[in-house]
């Protein structure tokens, strides 16, 4: 269960969004929409706790959040399996046996991640989400570079494994994921020049 109340967040010290409120129940998904530069990435990073909020609260079960973006921590000189095992160990969880199959990585399991194509690497990054056992996912454009088939793999994973087990997700994307979920357009929440709380506020 994720509850966001009256959140304002900033990028580079400048308020970008303000007054964002929503709630996502367990087993639910929220899709963030909005034109380039509206602040999706900023919002997701704030939700995941990677940057402090200007004001407002983000509430979800402690130690259950996970953030994933383009930079998904895949090491080029480790194999696919080594990459996944590492993250499983860090999170103290076991790697599910079928996770490679879920993301169609079985034939690639012993390949160095650096030799994967863009889409294959992306699938590996997504497979990490199935390994760390976190319930609250914050995903920034998870399907970049994926072909239609892989997008479906991802949607299936999300629906059948993550949400079915009581997980939830907030996803920023520009494309249609094939998941039936409420959407939130961020355009109305764009911070005006008067938004308070910027780190440079004392100077105005």
């Amino acid at each position, binding site marked *: 269960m994720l509850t966001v109340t009256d959140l304002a967040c900033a990028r580079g010290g400048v308020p970008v969004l303000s007054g964002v409120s929503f709630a996502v129940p367990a087993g639910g998904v929220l899709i963030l929409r909005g034109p380039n530069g509206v602040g999706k990435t900023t919002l997701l990073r704030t939700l995941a706790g990677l940057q402090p909020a200007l004001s407002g609260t983000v509430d979800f079960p402690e130690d259950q959040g996970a953030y994933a973006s383009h930079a998904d921590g895949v090491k080029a000189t480790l194999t696919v399996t080594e990459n996944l095992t590492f993250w499983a160990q860090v999170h103290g969880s076991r790697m599910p046996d079928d996770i490679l199959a879920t993301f169609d990585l079985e034939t690639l399991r012993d390949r160095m991640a650096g030799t994967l194509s863009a889409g294959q690497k992306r699938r590996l990054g997504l497979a990490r989400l199935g390994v760390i056992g976190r319930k609250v996912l914050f995903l920034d454009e998870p399907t970049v570079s994926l072909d239609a088939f892989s997008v479906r793999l991802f949607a299936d994973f999300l629906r059948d494994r993550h949400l079915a087990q009581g997980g939830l997700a907030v996803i920023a994307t520009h494309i249609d994921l094939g998941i039936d979920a409420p959407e939130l357009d961020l355009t109305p929440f764009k911070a005006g020049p008067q938004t308070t709380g910027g*780190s440079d506020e004392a100077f105005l």
Partner: protein
Amino acid sequence: MSIWEYANPKKFMGWTAPLVPWLFGLAGACLIVGLVWGFFLTPDDYKQGSTVKIIYLHVPSALMAINAWFMMLIASLIWLVRRHHVSALAAKAAAPVGVVMTLIALFTGAVWGQPMWGTWWAWDPRLTSFLILFLFYLGYIALWAAIEDPDTAADLTSVLCIVGSVFAVLSRYAVNFWNQGLHQGASLSMDKADHVANVFYIPLLVCIAGFVLLFIALVLLRTRTEIRVRRMSALIARTRPTEVTT
């Protein structure tokens, strides 16, 4: 009203505005009096000859070089604990002043060393630890310059300042240790101040006062400039993206 209110940027700009010219005036007066007195009106030392006149620059600048770092340390702690922007900016503003003081101390010391010790530079503990202080200043300034986001820069330079202070003290001790083991040491002693006669002592005090005042004036002025820069970038940021110039 809590004393911290004075650290609000707007308030700070308000109460420092009338102060700066007075401080500069006072500092200038002290320096002129002290230096003229010291340079023209004091006798030569029987042993050091006219080189003793260098003391009026060397000692105050060496004092201020150390005190500037001390001030930065305190300002950094205040920033980390209470997050008052002005204290972070004051630390930033003080660093270049500290460097110049260090440079003056180093240079005057070096040209004094040539006639006194027969060498520009020796790896005496005091000189050496000063050189290390100079390096700390350089690193601190470079870190400020390298980081774009001002709050991040303030945080990181503060941490550096604190850790650096610990290591500066440690090196001071290490250098002492090192030189006792190897160096004859005697020729480098600098304990003359204890014996300095009053003729030298009073103008020296005036000069020290001048340096202290000049330091305060410069730091205030530069802090005000830094505040304005922050305000400027804040205003520019808020007018984005409709129009951006300069």
